[in-house]
């Protein structure tokens, strides 16, 4: 199964986004990663790396959803350093809508990293009004 990692500057935001995504894609493997290494607002490369490795444990690959700025950069380095089987991709997508789409697609038995990434990226087109 393709794993999903949600990275936010806030641990509570990451957990909340995973909670929303799990409502629709409850069987997906989703990891929430948030906050800096002291629990403040920020992101931690080491925590993201651990999240990717946890989400990747069955070898199906991982799609990472990120919020802002350092979340993207730390996720890039975490991917370089993570020791896992399978591909890892960062989705260029809004974090909540993308995570929800990704979780739903990940529960599809034919899902691949590409299809989950595409589902997440589709969320870019969603308009609110």
């Amino acid at each position, binding site marked *: 199964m393709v794993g999903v990692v949600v990275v936010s500057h806030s641990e509570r935001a990451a957990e909340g986004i995973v909670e929303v995504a799990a409502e629709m894609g409850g069987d997906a493997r989703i990891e929430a990663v948030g906050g*800096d290494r002291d629990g403040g607002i920020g992101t*931690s*490369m080491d925590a993201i790396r651990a999240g990717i490795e946890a989400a990747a444990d069955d070898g199906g690959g991982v799609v990472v959803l990120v919020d802002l*700025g*350092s979340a993207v*950069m*730390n996720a890039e380095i975490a991917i370089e350093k993570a020791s896992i089987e399978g591909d890892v991709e960062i989705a260029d997508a809004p974090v909540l809508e993308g995570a929800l789409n990704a979780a739903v697609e990940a529960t599809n038995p034919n899902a691949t990293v590409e299809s989950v990434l595409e589902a997440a990226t589709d969320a870019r087109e969603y308009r609110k009004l």
Partner: protein
Amino acid sequence: MVDSETEREALLAAISNVADRLTEEREYLTDLDSAIGDADHGANMDRGFEAALDRAESTDGDAAEMIKTVGTALVSAVGGASGPLYGGSIMSASAELEEGITPETTVAFAEAYLEKVRDRGDAPVGAKTMVDALVPAVHTYKKSIEADDLPPLEALRKAVDAAERGVEFTVPLRAKKGRASYLGWRSVGHQDPGATSTLLILEELLQTTEQYVDSEADGDSDARDATAPAEPAIDPDDAETENGDAVDGEGE
């Protein structure tokens, strides 16, 4: 070309000098960052280079390996975007030092570092970021070595001058990248903290290189103790003295 023991000693001295300088300038960087950011750049850089020095001291590897551990430590210990920008770029660029520290490898390192920072940060020149100090410094260094055939120490001096002008250039700019960009026009009139910390690091690299090149010439390089506390290296011409009371030398 120096032997690997002197190279290691000089590198540790450089990292130690940078760490000390960032401790001294912690409040100054924090002040700059509180004007247009989240007031953590001083503490983050101080903590980062303390961790980097620790790790580098306990590494037995060659120059490339040592610099790579510096990058790894910075990624883990520096928060915000500076961790991945400084640390991730140093990690990647360290591969250029596998043949040791020479004029050619340091140009390659500087170019690889700049490329990674630009790639990861996606910031053009003029967006009020560390790129504004880095681009003129790296271009000047490369030109001085490759086109003008200057000695490395002279090339590094010119690079530091170029970085200093780049830092001054950030003051009137409107931020287009990073947290300061959320302030829009209100970011104008403030010096960029990331460009400033880039300059501080380059100044310490120059300072350390001067010590080692001079001591090489005097033939007493073995007498130097790389673990000794570094002299405070505040040059009266430093950019920060233009900011009134910014330099107070206190670590906390």
